[in-house]
């Protein structure tokens, strides 16, 4: 163990400028992160230039902090580079595991320990007790900081210098871009992969990232190490791209009458012009399909997850794109929803005026309220076991409930009976819209992640937006929701009930009549 401290001291003497830079950036990050109420702080800055720099600092300080860690790890590991056969230290009586330990100790002392202290400080300053959160705080070190450290260690131990590391990082970024593009291509028509596959993918990736540096220190087999990382990551990518289940399997088809949400298409009015008010979204044209909604049980919500448009066999179907992601919430009070579907402008122009029989498939998820309760909004800051520490805030001229919660924002269903609230239903908002004409809902779905949200700040700042239910008619007046102290909110945990799929028909319709009109 004497070698560990001996080498650590040497590294500390050598890399003090990099250590200082990283600690200075951590101090800047802490200073910025202590503005817990992000939305409020943003609103308080009066000049647009101040707001710009405030937003910029929130984004770039963490980026540069992570960059400084990467640089520090690269420098300290490559100080005794494992690549090549000309290094001075290789023929000295270094014990490999003591050398590895000294590097890990360095990273622990100058990255993990200061960060843990900052996390403790942030939790404490935000008003959360430290002790009950200590376990999850330790767990948090195994999210983003751990991923950054492990990946950089793997990169540093298989490259000779900063130039090689930069090249390696470039290859990794390129592989990520290709992987994400392929993923977006394949994942549309695929359901969520099984848990086991997720575990195998994580095991392959993180296994190779963790084992290779140890192997490199023990044996210095650079080529084999690089091949191992590339091979395991490639296998993990391929495995994650395999569609183990299709949307049709995950979302079983239900007859409309059995569906917990009764959806029906509306007759489409013909546009007189050929392409009325064609919205310009680059090379895409957005089709908008209005549907009537009814039958959703109180205390439930149905989410539209994906949508697929098909036409009769024999008709030109080259323009349809299979399953595409949607994001619509259907609540008990919902009456009208507008589903959207992108079509390539080139394709659109060739078939816009042709009557087509459209078959619409929707993949939906039903959630139910669990443990519902009423929250009477107090004035000022208040603490809630489910929501965290919250307060009413104005954000971008809207009234929102801004909350702080350790590690991960909670899942919730929130209902605000705005017309019957003491907040008033006729006064105009800052956006010059009438307020509280309709019931409003807030929603955050549950996820299956157990770890804290990957990030550098243990205090998650989130806003609960209560969105009013869409008006039954497109001609009806739009409104805004304004919360106030004394308002009653119905809060519940969302409980997943089932996935299902329904099919709607839209016969003899021209695409040009579905294009979103500015007057909508």
């Amino acid at each position, binding site marked *: 163990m004497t070698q560990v401290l001996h080498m650590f001291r040497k590294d500390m003497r050598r890399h003090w400028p990099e250590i200082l830079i990283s600690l200075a950036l951590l101090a800047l990050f802490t200073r910025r992160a202590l503005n817990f109420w992000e939305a409020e702080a943003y609103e308080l800055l009066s000049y647009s230039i101040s707001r710009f720099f405030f937003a910029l600092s929130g984004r770039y300080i963490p980026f540069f902090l992570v960059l400084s860690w990467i640089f520090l790890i690269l420098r300290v590991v490559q100080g005794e580079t494992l690549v090549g056969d000309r290094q*001075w230290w290789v023929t000295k009586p270094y014990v490999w595991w003591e050398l590895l330990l000294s590097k890990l100790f360095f990273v622990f002392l100058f990255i993990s320990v200061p960060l843990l202290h900052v996390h403790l400080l942030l939790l404490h300053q935000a008003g959360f007790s430290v002790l009950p959160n200590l376990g999850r705080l330790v767990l948090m070190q195994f999210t983003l900081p751990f991923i950054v450290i492990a990946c950089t260690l793997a990169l540093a131990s298989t490259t000779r210098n900063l130039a090689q590391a930069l090249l390696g990082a470039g290859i990794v970024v390129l592989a990520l871009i290709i992987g994400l593009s392929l993923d977006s291509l394949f994942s549309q028509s695929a359901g969520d992969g099984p848990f086991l596959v997720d575990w195998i993918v994580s095991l392959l990736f993180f296994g190779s990232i963790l084992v290779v540096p140890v192997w490199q220190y023990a044996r210095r087999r650079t080529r084999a190490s690089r091949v191992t990382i590339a091979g395991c990551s490639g296998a993990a990518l391929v495995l994650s791209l395999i569609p183990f289940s299709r949307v049709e399997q995950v979302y079983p088809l239900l007859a409309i009458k059995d569906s917990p949400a009764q959806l029906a298409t509306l007759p489409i009015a013909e546009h007189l012009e050929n392409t009325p008010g064609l919205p310009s979204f680059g090379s895409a044209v957005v089709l908008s399909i209005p549907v009537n909604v009814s039958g959703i049980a109180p205390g439930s919500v149905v989410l539209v997850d994906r949508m697929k448009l098909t036409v009769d066999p024999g008709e030109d179907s080259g323009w349809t794109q299979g399953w595409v992601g949607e994001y619509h919430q259907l609540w008990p009070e919902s009456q009208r929803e507008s589903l959207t579907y992108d079509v390539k402008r080139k394709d659109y122009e060739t078939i816009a005026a042709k009557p087509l029989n459209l078959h619409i498939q929707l993949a939906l998820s039903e959630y139910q309220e669990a443990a519902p309760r009423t929250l009477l909004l107090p004035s000022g800051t208040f603490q809630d076991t489910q929501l965290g520490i919250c307060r009413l805030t104005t954000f971008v001229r809207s009234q929102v409930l801004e909350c702080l919660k350790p590690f991960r924002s909670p899942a919730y269903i929130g209902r605000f009976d705005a017309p019957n609230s003491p907040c008033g239903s006729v006064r105009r908002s800052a956006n010059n819209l009438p307020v509280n004409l309709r019931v409003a809902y807030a929603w955050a779905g549950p996820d299956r992640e157990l770890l804290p949200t990957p990030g550098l700040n243990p205090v998650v700042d989130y806003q609960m937006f209560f969105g009013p239910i869409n008006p039954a008619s497109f001609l009806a007046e739009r409104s805004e929701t304004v919360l106030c102290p004394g308002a009653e909110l119905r809060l519940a945990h969302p409980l997943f009930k089932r996935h299902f799929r329904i099919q709607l028909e839209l016969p003899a319709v021209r695409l040009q009549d579905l294009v979103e009109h500015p007057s909508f």
Partner: protein
Amino acid sequence: MPLAIHTEQLTRRFGRITAVDSVNLDVPEGALYALVGQNGAGKTTIIKVLMNLIPATLGSATILGENSSDIRGKSYAQVGYVSENQENPEWMRVGAVLEYLRDFYPTWDCRLEQSLVKQFELPLDRKVKVLSRGMKMKLALASALAFHPRLIVLDEPFGGLDPLVRDQLIESLLESAAESTVFISSHDLAEIETFSTHVGYLESGRLLFSEEMSSLATRFREVEIVTEPTHPLPSPLPPSWLQPKSSGALVRFIDSRFDEQNTAADIYRLFPTATNVQFRALSLRSIFLALARKSEEA
């Protein structure tokens, strides 16, 4: 005699190129062994395999009784390694390098370190990156000698050094030789000749010979014969006669298997009119050049 270095059919290939080809090498403990050969002969590759810097493709090697592929960590506490193309910790000061190394070696001798620093006039407060090539080599040698290694491995240590520095290094090396085995690769034949006890000659990855200097000196002789002018030279000449030349009545060659009686018998068989035969001892450099020319001709 116990062996400090032993290789058996040691082979190292880089793709299709065979850098070291089935080398069998024995270096007895206490020897001052010089491995000589032209550039690209495979000397550095052998040393890198011995030091476990690169793995062997075939065959095996042992250093101080330990398989070279197992040499790592504390095994290096008995081996001092100096190479001309080794990367140094350029950012450190000379004093800091020695201070840093001190803790790695249980046998580090601070007195010897001080004496080497004094002898080599090492500037302790200067950074390694500003040192001259000679000074860097002195520092490397000082740090390789200060812990009384059982084996000192030197890869081309004298290349590009001025004679004064070379003499200083050799002098220190000889002082240590009493307690260590020294394995040195070099082209610098003149210096090696003055202190080597054993020599090996490597050519295109193959070890052509490996023997004690005294036996090598005995085995190689320059032979000069005065005889009646002979054109051309009789054929075939013994294969051990290298670079045969005739100029009028004078015939010259180098015998690589000199044995006074046998060589004389061969001479009188091939040159019956020989009147005067002289045998002269050769320097290592002349032997090396003769062998190099022979391989070029081949």
